[in-house]
């Protein structure tokens, strides 16, 4: 029976070893001078450049930086899960996230974030950015970029219909539809790409009219909201005019741009680097303001979609991390120049804008879009996004699509959106 005992013991020992191995902490105990930064896409590049510039300016610094690039959905999910654990060890020191998530982080997990009020001067920032990083007078994030609402359009297709660039400036949606019909007749190409399901264009319209799903107190803002009504009606009229290249999702925008399926795209300025990646279309694109709704003087040609901010988590190095973030993202001209010229991410700090060095970008055929974006930022209406922006977006989007498909009338869909807003927004 000796064999049996040996085998039994062997099994037990192996199991114990595996269990022990599994129980070991997997993250290397962080040395005190480690700074981790999480960001996605081009903002991860911003972080990397910031680290590089910082290390050039401070050669003696013994802080080690780790910039981790992830997909946006992935990073947001990880941040939320980590926040819900209540412990900061799974969180980075610094991370970048959109305006829409600010309220949720600070309202529910505010004690895990480092307050940034004493570190910099918020008055230097545009009001529409400043209003979304403040809670009860305290600042919890550094405003970074704005997804300035612009209309990108193909100037060659406009010209083929006999129009010029001046004809595209400062339009109303009615004028836009007229132009769209003309261009469609001349070139056969749809005027605008739209995806009602993601409510991207919707959000641009709401903010251009100075309104949002919820008011500053988080109560629903749909009932008796003429601006909201006008925005939905405008989107519908685009479809009724037959000038929309309708796409089901985010990825289809890329294909539509690549294959020239539409003349114009209304979105945030972060589309610019994506459009410039299609080198063969160099010289064919221009930007102009977003068309405005008609019916009130409060409606503007300016808007914002998915701008972002830098957050600092309350950890052992939060003091240094805050100084780093402020020094680089709020005050560093070299970084601002680099990001503006490489990725069209223009600063929202008026000082940095004033000192901006703009390089020529032949892709836009002589148009200086960086200066134009800075100019547009001056006029963007201020809107407090508050909580539940994404849940509303993903609920309203499908409803808007059904409205456009004719399943609901405008009043019916507004009633449904109102119900959704009450259910989603009211309880916090």
């Amino acid at each position, binding site marked *: 029976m000796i064999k049996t005992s040996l085998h039994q013991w062997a099994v037990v020992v192996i199991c114990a070893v595996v269990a022990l191995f599994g129980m070991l902490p997997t993250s290397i105990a962080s040395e005190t001078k480690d700074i981790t930064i999480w960001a996605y896409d081009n903002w991860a590049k911003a972080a990397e450049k910031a680290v590089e510039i910082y290390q050039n300016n401070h050669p003696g610094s013994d802080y080690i930086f780790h910039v981790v690039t992830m997909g946006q*959905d992935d990073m*947001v*999910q990880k941040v*939320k*899960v980590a926040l*819900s654990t*209540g412990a900061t060890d799974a969180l980075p020191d610094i991370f970048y996230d959109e305006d829409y998530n600010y309220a*949720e982080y600070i*309202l*529910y*997990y505010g004690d895990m974030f480092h307050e940034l009020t004493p570190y910099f001067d918020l008055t230097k920032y545009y009001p529409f950015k400043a209003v979304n990083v403040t809670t009860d007078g305290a600042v919890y994030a550094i405003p970074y970029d704005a997804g300035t609402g612009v209309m990108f359009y193909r100037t060659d297709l406009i010209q083929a219909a006999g129009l010029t660039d001046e004809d595209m400036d400062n339009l109303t949606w009615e004028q836009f539809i007229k132009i769209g019909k003309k261009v469609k007749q001349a070139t056969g190409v749809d005027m605008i790409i739209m995806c009602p*399901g993601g409510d991207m264009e919707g959000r641009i319209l709401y903010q251009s009219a100075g309104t949002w799903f919820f008011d500053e107190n988080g109560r629903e803002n749909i009932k008796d909201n003429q601006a909201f009504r006008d925005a939905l009606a405008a989107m519908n009229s685009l479809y009724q005019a037959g000038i929309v*290249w*309708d*796409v*089901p*999702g985010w*990825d*289809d925008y890329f*294909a*539509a741009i*690549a*294959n020239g*399926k539409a003349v114009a795209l209304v979105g945030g300025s972060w589309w610019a680097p994506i459009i410039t990646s299609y080198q063969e279309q160099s010289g064919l694109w221009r930007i102009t303001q977003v068309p405005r709704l008609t019916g009130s003087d409060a409606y503007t040609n300016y808007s914002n979609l998915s701008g972002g901010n830098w957050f600092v988590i309350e950890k052992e190095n939060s003091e240094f991390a805050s100084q780093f973030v402020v020094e680089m993202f709020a005050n560093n001209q070299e970084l601002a120049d680099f990001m503006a010229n490489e990725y069209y991410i223009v600063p929202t700090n008026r000082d940095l804008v004033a000192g901006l060095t703009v390089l020529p970008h032949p892709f836009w055929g002589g148009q200086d879009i960086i200066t134009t974006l800075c100019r547009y930022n001056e006029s963007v209406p201020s809107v407090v996004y508050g*909580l*539940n922006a*994404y*849940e509303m977006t*993903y*609920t309203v989007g*499908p409803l808007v*699509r*059904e409205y456009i*498909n004719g399943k609901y009338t405008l009043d019916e869909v507004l009633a*449904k959106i109102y*119900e*959704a807003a009450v*259910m989603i927004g009211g*309880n*916090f």
Partner: protein
Amino acid sequence: MRKNRAHCRWKLLFLLPAMLTIVATVYVPLVYAFYLSLFGGRGRKIEYVGLGNYTKLMSDDMFLSSLVNSFIFTAIIVPCILLLGCLLAYCLWNLKSSAAKRFLSILYFMPSVTSPVAYSLFFKQITYSDGIVSGILKALHVLSDESSLLNSVAGARILISAICVWSWTGFYALILRAAIDNINESAIEAAEMDGASTSKIFRKIILPNISPVLVMVCILSSCSIFELYTEVALITKGGPGISTYTMALYLYRKAFVYVSEFGYASAIGIAVFVLLILVCLVIIIQKKVYGNEK
């Protein structure tokens, strides 16, 4: 007597690791899920609401729409799997060459072992508006020039159903073939000699004999449909509007994408479980009733 009891206890030890693991990883979380579902509130502000989450569920448009979607998918996918699976099983069983048998069995089973994430990502890339699949469909004039497969409600649902059928049929065809193997060969051969058509042999001989396995295939595929997450999350993200929104997707969004509502999301999870059991019971009862009538 005493020795028997001690012996019995010693034998129990063999079952212990399995029972412990299953209780710890399945039943304890299940009970905890029900406990969590009794609390509402968001983020870290949680409050006891009793069955309030469930009453909220019953009037939640998103949840009801996703439930309807699950039923629609079941109505499309399950018959396809049954039909395709049975035909495949029968044709494979009938095949004489064993090399071809082996090769084809492996071929049909491959999608079942491929990671859902991998093939979902792949299908996403090739089905967007100018992808390869759309190109083929437009050439065949099934799709109009202007739209993409994912743009219409019907198109998105058919796409997801087709992907599910592609992925799961191989596994079920295997089970069905094992069942057909157990049928008395001579009965089928006699029928073939008499010149009966394939469909007649199917209806009269094969189907009645494998009906318990058919029921199991129905139940298993319904379970998979009610839990559908990866394909819809990666390919259609809920589809045009909410036409391919599933309950699993809603649960994930409520818990990890929107402001975390773990209580409400747990209630959705428990609801999915209860609905699943109900559907299985309906299938079993229907089979018993139908069987009795015959």
